[in-house]
């Protein structure tokens, strides 16, 4: 399952699995954010191409209005996915500590 909400520091915190079934609610949440947004992926266990599509659509929209989506707390597995898909060129990515 997936949980997505604002953390106490204003970052968007996502946890669980961002798969094809969970992408629509994630997209609905991210469609409402504005400006420079950090997505805390520390507890994001899994992402598929459907989840990548959510991030891409959000990044395009935010860049279009002068904002951006930044990814933090990214695990080694997610980092591999982002590199293989070329998302490391499209997003500022901060690895999880010790990764």
């Amino acid at each position, binding site marked *: 399952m997936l949980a997505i909400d604002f953390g106490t520091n204003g970052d968007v915190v996502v946890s669980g699995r961002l798969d094809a079934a969970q992408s629509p609610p994630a997209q609905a949440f991210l469609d409402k954010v504005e400006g420079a947004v950090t997505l805390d992926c520390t507890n994001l266990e899994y992402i598929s191409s459907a989840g990548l599509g959510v991030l*891409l659509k959000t990044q*395009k929209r935010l860049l279009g209005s002068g904002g951006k989506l930044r990814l933090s707390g990214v695990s080694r597995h997610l980092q591999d996915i982002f590199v293989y898909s070329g998302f490391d060129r499209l997003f500022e990515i901060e690895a999880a500590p010790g990764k």
Partner: protein
Amino acid sequence: MTACRAFRRSIESIQDIFAFTAEVFARDRVDPALLPSVDLTVEELFTNMVKYGSSSAEVRIDVTTIEGGVEVALTDYDVEPFDVTQAPDVDIELPIEQRRPGGLGLHLIRRLVDCVHYEYSAEYRKSRITFRKTQVAPPACDGGHCAGSANARD
């Protein structure tokens, strides 16, 4: 050891599929580090079958434990041929304005698993996609295939 199960052709089945793969990994003591790549590959292949197939038949998934990992087969019934191993790679160097999410799933699969093999039976209108993921082989960054693809006529 092989475990097999059939899943309703729906995106909602993904949670049940993940439960199935996790169950097999735990039962056969397969390295859990391989599970995210296996789940991603199964999800991408399964969702392709759901999106582009017009059949109402269930999709069968077989997971076989092999040396150092697993071999997984997805069998789709009453479908037209579509060789996933021939799908073009995504150009990841395009600027963001030109990037589209489509095609990323098959692009990723080629980099995450050891090999992918496609077979189609024209007589039974059945497609079967098999892939392997082991600890030994590195990701197939060159878009590797198990043994090429085949259009069987059985």
